[in-house]
């Protein structure tokens, strides 16, 4: 493919960041590069970084939209700390990303956009390409806009349409750099713009122009190549966390034989789950966009009573609004899954940024003693399995389940080994048969302590549920003090017993020793990478990651007892560490916290753990 095969350098992994104005199509560029990465067999993870505003003022730092991909010949667990290659379509994109690239990163810029008026908008006093601030970087200056227009000249597109495809010029350059084939991308153009052959042609021409430009110029001393990763055999695809979450629920509905019902209200960064489920009525999945967050969950409770696998999806502020209704689901002991795609808080906070600061709200944010199962997805592809498991636990144990994901998992993507739905664990809800003479609404299963699910329309099972305290067994309204205490304890024990139905906590590294690093939820990939790298360097450091938060895995105390020092890492001020302190007060805990709306970086974790190891 390349004329410069003699100058191909083999890399283990690389990080590329595409950055431009939010209208420049950087997300598409990134996702097309991801697709080609899949074809060459690398493992990869991606992360989009976009502003909360749909179209912030053009050319300003707040309007910069970015897409990062980390790919390699090994297992990739994170979207990468810092980029090795930055594509900056304008000065603002350069400015916004200088902190997110390595010291010797290659920077590709569209010189046509590096003009006086754009320097001002970006907040530069001088041209950053000439003021010496990029010393140490290899800067590839390409008049992308001009050459894009030139490439499509013969198609006689209007100026605006012609410029629209300039992102493909940049993509063409990066394809050349990484010895990529562009046939798959051409195929994408042909499918996507089926109705507009001119646009297909334009995009192809521009991509090729970028590719050949990169081939021709002297600036690229080398091209790069990364060998396929040793992934397990099988069929793969790329998924974002939100997509995987939606699909996990669809799979759970199919496997449990229940219709899916999602009652939800749009909120960043959770809306994509609602959008995805809305597309799949063919599976008898009903997505109801309610008038507010409360109607979202309450309609789901109604659907749950009527026999559906019922869900509601939201982010932090929405979870606050749903609190009272979650209490109703606790009292009525109906199955429902509440997804909280966590974002920066409090209040409106940082809607497009990621945080883990809703943990306490998920665990305790309700009136009364209102225990629910809480689980936290650990990666974008794990969102599929977490959604599936949350559904299984809700349906089989007749209880609300809160599934915590976060903005980084939701919008980030990674490679996903496609499972067979039939290979997923069976889901068997305790549905009562018509005219069951033993039916009592609150007569419990002896092992799980769940109550039976009697679905309206079934003969001989008419009964009432509601938010008032229920009499044991009969489910009649009861104000009896001792009955109330019994019911409070039973509801708690029902959730506690779920510990028998979830996997034990596993440890990576020595099963006892000096340091145990602890994480939960979405930080799995980054902590794992830091631990793996330290262990490869010969350090003795162990790692345990929590997906199940309420109840905790039953061997948790056991694991904690085996280490001299425990350090809990999380993107909040210490909510999980305090939960551990509450449950296991006999141990000392160190903590490492970051609350910047950004995920941890591998480098910062490694640096911190190293300093602990050297103490």
């Amino acid at each position: 493919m390349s004329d410069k095969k003699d100058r191909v350098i083999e890399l283990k992994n690389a990080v590329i960041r595409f950055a431009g104005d939010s209208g420049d199509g950087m997300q598409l560029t990134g996702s097309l590069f991801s697709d080609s990465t899949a074809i060459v067999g690398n493992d990869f993870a991606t992360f989009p970084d976009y502003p909360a505003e749909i179209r912030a003022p053009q050319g300003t730092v707040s309007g910069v939209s970015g897409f990062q991909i980390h790919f390699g010949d090994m297992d990739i667990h994170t979207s990468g700390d810092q980029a090795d290659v930055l594509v900056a379509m304008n000065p603002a994109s350069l400015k916004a990303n200088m902190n997110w690239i390595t010291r010797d990163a290659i920077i590709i810029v569209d010189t046509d956009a590096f003009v006086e008026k754009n320097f001002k908008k970006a907040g530069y006093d001088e041209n950053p390409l000439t003021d010496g601030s990029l010393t140490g970087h290899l800067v590839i200056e390409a008049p992308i806009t001009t050459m894009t227009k030139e490439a499509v000249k013969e198609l006689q597109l209007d100026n605006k349409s012609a410029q629209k495809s300039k992102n493909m010029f940049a993509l063409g350059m990066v394809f050349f750099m990484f010895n990529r084939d562009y046939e798959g991308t051409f195929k994408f153009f042909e499918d996507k713009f089926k109705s507009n052959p001119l646009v297909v042609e334009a995009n192809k021409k521009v991509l090729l122009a970028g590719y050949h430009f990169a081939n021709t110029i002297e600036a690229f001393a080398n091209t790069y190549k990364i060998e396929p990763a040793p992934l397990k055999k099988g069929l793969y695809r790329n998924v974002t966390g939100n997509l995987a979450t939606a699909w996990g629920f669809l799979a759970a509905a199919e496997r449990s034989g229940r219709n899916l019902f999602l009652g939800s209200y749009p909120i960043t960064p959770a809306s994509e789950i609602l959008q995805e489920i809305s597309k799949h009525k063919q599976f008898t999945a009903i997505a109801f966009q309610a008038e507010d967050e409360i109607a979202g969950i309450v309609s789901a409770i109604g659907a749950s009573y009527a026999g559906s696998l019922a869900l509601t999806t939201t982010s932090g502020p929405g979870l606050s609004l749903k609190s009272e209704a979650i209490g109703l689901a606790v009292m009525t002991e109906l199955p429902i899954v509440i997804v909280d795609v966590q974002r920066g808080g409090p209040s409106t906070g940082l809607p497009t940024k990621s945080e883990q600061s809703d943990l306490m709200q998920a665990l305790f944010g309700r009136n009364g003693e209102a225990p629910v199962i809480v689980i936290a997805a650990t990666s974008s592809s794990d969102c599929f399995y977490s959604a599936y498991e949350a559904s299984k636990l809700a349906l089989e144990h007749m209880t609300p389940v809160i599934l915590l994901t976060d903005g980084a998992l939701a919008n980030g993507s990674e490679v996903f080994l496609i499972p067979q739905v039939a290979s997923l664990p069976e889901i068997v809800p305790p549905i009562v048969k018509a005219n069951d003479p033993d039916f009592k609404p609150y007569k419990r299963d002896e092992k799980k302590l769940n109550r039976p699910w009697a679905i309206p329309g079934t003969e001989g099972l008419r009964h009432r549920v509601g938010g008032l305290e229920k009499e044991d067994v009969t489910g009649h309204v009861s104000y009896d003090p001792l009955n109330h205490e019994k019911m409070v304890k039973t509801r708690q024990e029902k959730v506690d017993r779920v510990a028998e139905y979830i996997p034990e906590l596993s440890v990576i590294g020595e099963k006892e020793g000096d340091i145990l690093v602890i994480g939960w939820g979405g930080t799995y990939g980054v902590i794992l990478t830091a631990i793996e790298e330290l262990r490869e360097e010969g350090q003795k450091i162990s790692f345990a990651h929590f997906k199940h938060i309420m109840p905790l895995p039953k061997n948790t105390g056991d694991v904690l007892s085996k280490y001299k020092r425990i350090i809990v890492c999380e993107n909040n001020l210490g909510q999980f560490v305090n939960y551990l302190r509450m449950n296991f007060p006999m141990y000392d805990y160190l903590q490492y916290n970051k609350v910047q709306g950004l995920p941890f970086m591998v480098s910062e974790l490694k640096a911190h753990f190293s300093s602990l190891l050297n103490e």
Partner: protein
Amino acid sequence: MENIIETPKLALTKKDFESDRMVKWCPGCGDHAILKAVENVFPELGIPKENFVVVSGIGCSSRFPYYMNTYGVHGIHGRAAALATGVKLANPELSVWMITGDGDSMAIGGNHFIHVVRRNPDINILLFNNKIYGLTKGQFSPTSPEGSKTKTSPQGTYEAPFNPGELVIGAHGKFFARVVDTNIKMMSQVFTEAAKHKGTSVVEILENCVIFNNQIHALITSRDTKDENQLFLEAGEPMIFGKERDKGIVLRGTNLEVVKIGENGITEKDILVHDPHTEDSGIHVMLASMMPPEFPAALGVIRSVKSHTFEELVWNSVEHEKKTSKLKNVDDLLHTGNTWVKQ
């Protein structure tokens, strides 16, 4: 056009719907009569008893599901409309009844109320309007008349009340009726019409609260004054009322007016004839707004207009997608788009 569901009768009686629970409303509360009327209506609708679901919010009226031997959910304050929507969407076969009050649906649940009406699922809403908060012991509600002196408005309220009928029609409601809690026969008749209407039907029940708002509807309901203050509307019939049936409603200019038949040359022919099925809501909203002492209160079915229901549209869409989608199961879905094989 009206919108009616006809179903064959089943051999059910009132007994099939009576619960064994002790009814704990205050003696003399209008709720008792409403419960009786509902128990009269349910066996007559031709619906299997296991297909009724009675849902509610919070308040005195919202204890209703506990007193019916049907499936039922006592929800949370103001949210009954969302609960009902979820039940109906999940299983359109069910006959869903929503019991709510003026606090529950006009205040905390006002948002859900207008949206359920706008979407038009086939749900029957019984709105108990006693113009007071009963369960919290006597605070004014959004339907309390301006100036009402209550525990939280010792000098009288400073706010204009909602008229539920205006709200329903304003939210593009297709069915609105009004009844009084003192007339079980009228309630039974109107509840039956509400049940048969395909779409959201709202029945406002002017209800007395003996403890905190006694006689609030006295002008409309008391023996001495009711004949002069009740106009019972029937489709195709002139709007005549009064003990002597000598008063009527006419349209003068753009306003309704009360006239006396036989005076000033007015004959029965001049009286407006009720058409609940006309799309145009102009007269309906004027009828809903009429209140004593200037006007009689309009009772019976004020508006009943045909329309598709929410769940019908949703489920038609489900059926259509099932027939036309290439995706037959979730495995198919997981294999869509860009996939690649690792050997």
